[in-house]
């Protein structure tokens, strides 16, 4: 009898985990539950995917060590979407039809999520990711889509709230990377800033992967802004801020924390990074979930999306555990808010949550990336934003902006 690929993987999995805990041997006797990751390992989002995938792998190790879902281990299938919608569709088809996953987690690019969404909805596979474009949760997805990143409208208004709070920033310019949400974020941001009484001196969208932004910088600096709101990712932000520094710009810079992070500071150097403001939806730094995440995923705290990926997998697992035996994307859809939203006993990990669920109690998962409470269309409910500033080469927490 030939050994199928599935048997082979199961066997090697059993060999690996057998050293970990006896509970797992019991788990191995049951059929594994297939979950797929679809992260950008190459392409434009290539610097974010690997950490997201690692976080998911780390969570699954813990879940399986804790006995899995009613004794059944989770088996992960990884695919690279190449930050391309078409490649993402082919990968998703393989995950859905060949690997028979019940959920696809940690998509990143809005284009990929949008392209893959109809497939998941049709196949009743749950889709959860970090894509920011408004269209991701709009339209008819029958509840099979959720995301842990606040939508762009919310983000724009929160950033504007902070920008308008400083009286010395009267002239504000907006420079953003060409992304599906640059436009909507920009509109929300500039609209809210103007309503608060400040002036928008320039609004500019720049191209990705340019070696230098000298002309863009020259144009914007010609309008004499006090503050430049920079909406991009780390790679382009590094180039842009270096060019701003070289052009002797002495005003303030505000950007998203997922761009202005330790890699950014390392990239531009502490002198150039000094004083750059940044903000983002606050992860719950003090929560046990975040601490467990940091311990389990080395370097994961440098990635803006790894904490979310961690939560994606935990939420999917908890929702399945709440399903009382039945395992499918529909169960996840039905149980997501039950395990993620209040009311309920606050839990910070799968192990904790599974224990409570086994006792018939209702839970409210608070994750590494935030409170993880979802509204009806799959967006997370508004959350506080943390404002940081780079001081002496490190990001320091300055204040919190509440919704």
């Amino acid at each position: 009898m030939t050994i199928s690929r599935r048997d082979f993987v199961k066997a090697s999995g059993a060999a690996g985990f057998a050293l970990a805990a006896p509970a797992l041997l019991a788990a191995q006797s049951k059929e594994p539950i297939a979950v797929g990751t679809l992260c950008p390992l190459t392409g434009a989002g290539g610097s974010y995917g690997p950490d997201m995938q690692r976080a998911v792998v780390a969570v699954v190790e813990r879940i399986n060590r804790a006995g899995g879902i009613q004794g059944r281990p989770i088996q992960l299938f990884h695919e690279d979407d190449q930050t391309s919608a078409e490649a993402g569709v082919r990968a998703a088809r393989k995950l859905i039809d060949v690997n028979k996953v019940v959920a696809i987690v940690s998509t990143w690019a809005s284009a990929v999520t949008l392209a893959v969404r109809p497939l998941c909805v049709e196949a009743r596979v749950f889709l959860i990711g970090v894509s920011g474009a408004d269209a991701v949760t709009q339209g008819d997805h029958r509840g099979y889509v959720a995301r842990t990143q606040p939508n762009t409208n919310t983000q724009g208004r929160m950033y504007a709230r902070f920008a308008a709070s400083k009286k010395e920033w009267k002239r504000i310019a907006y420079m953003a990377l060409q992304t599906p949400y640059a436009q909507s974020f920009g509109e929300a941001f500039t609209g809210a800033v103007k309503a608060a009484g400040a002036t928008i001196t320039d609004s500019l969208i720049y191209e990705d992967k340019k070696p230098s932004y000298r002309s863009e910088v020259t144009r914007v600096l010609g309008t004499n802004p006090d503050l430049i709101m920079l909406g991009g990712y780390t790679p382009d932000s590094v180039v842009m801020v270096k060019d701003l520094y070289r052009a002797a710009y002495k005003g303030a810079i505000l950007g998203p924390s997922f761009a202005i992070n330790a890699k950014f500071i390392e990239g531009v150097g502490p002198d150039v990074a000094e004083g750059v403001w940044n903000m983002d939806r606050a992860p719950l730094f003090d929560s046990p979930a975040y601490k467990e995440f940091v311990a389990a995923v080395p370097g994961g705290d440098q990635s803006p999306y790894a904490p979310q990926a961690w939560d994606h997998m935990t939420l999917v697992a908890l929702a399945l555990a709440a399903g009382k035996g039945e395992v499918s994307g529909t169960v996840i859809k039905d149980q997501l808010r039950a395990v993620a939203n209040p009311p309920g006993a606050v839990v910070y990990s799968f192990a904790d949550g599974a224990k409570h669920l086994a006792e018939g109690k209702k839970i409210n998962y608070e994750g590494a990336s935030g409170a993880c409470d979802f509204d009806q269309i799959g967006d997370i409910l508004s959350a506080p934003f943390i404002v940081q500033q780079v001081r002496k080469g490190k990001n320091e927490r300055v204040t919190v902006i509440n919704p």
Partner: protein
Amino acid sequence: MFAYLTAVATLVGVRSLLTLGLNVQWGLTGLVNLGVIAFFGVGAYTSALLAVGGTSILLAWPAAVGVAAAAGAALAMVALRLREDYLAIVTLGFAEVLRLFLLNETWLTRGANGVTGIPRPLHTVFAGRYDIFYLGLVLLAVVLAYGALERLRRSPFGRVLRAIREDEIVAAVAGKPVFRFKVQAFALGAGIAGLAGALFAHYLAYVEPNMFLPQESLFVWLALILGGSGNNRGALVGSAVLLGLLEGTRFAKDVVPFLTGVRLAAAQQILVGVVLVVLMVRRPEGLIPEKTESN
């Protein structure tokens, strides 16, 4: 598994059609179009925008073909006065400009957001087995195009094109309006690429600018060269083999444990590059060599 294979087969079909279009330009007429993906994109967006705006598919698809062909004719009239290697760069640049246009002219193209909710023809009629229906549709298009292009190849028009490919000067001396024929061939290839684009857009029900990156043209070329540089059968075989290779290595990684993530993806792409170089060095005529036809 079946649905997965249907999906792959559909995409192979679409790609084959695109490669057939390129073959008209390169295989038949000897025109180097490194920007072939741009016409694919023009067709996709034309049909998508029209259909989303309420136009019937029966009008949207022919429009996609027409607009792509017109764009091809326009580019050809401007660029075809140039030498072979210049044409290559011009067409590459055109693809880049088109991508920027799709990305930036949001009033028309919806920019980076892309066009969502593209209607699928006869979706309600075939609800359950829609993927098979669409595969059938794509295969029908491929078969019709292949048949038509084979007829074309053997026709007087086709013979002139081949003469132009072999030696332009001789053809001109023989009294053929070389430039006019080249423009027509280029436009025809562009139109077929546009049809492939329309089929693509309505299959995915979503299009966005990054689907039409200039480097995608490379894969179309690779398929054509791999299958058999310059003949229609080669275009079909090459597309199938190439996509099969790309999809096949996807499964290999489930069994290759030491390569993960970026490394694996990079290794896959290195393989593609190496195959391309080896092909050009060792077997430039591809899997199905072109039969030289005596007149």
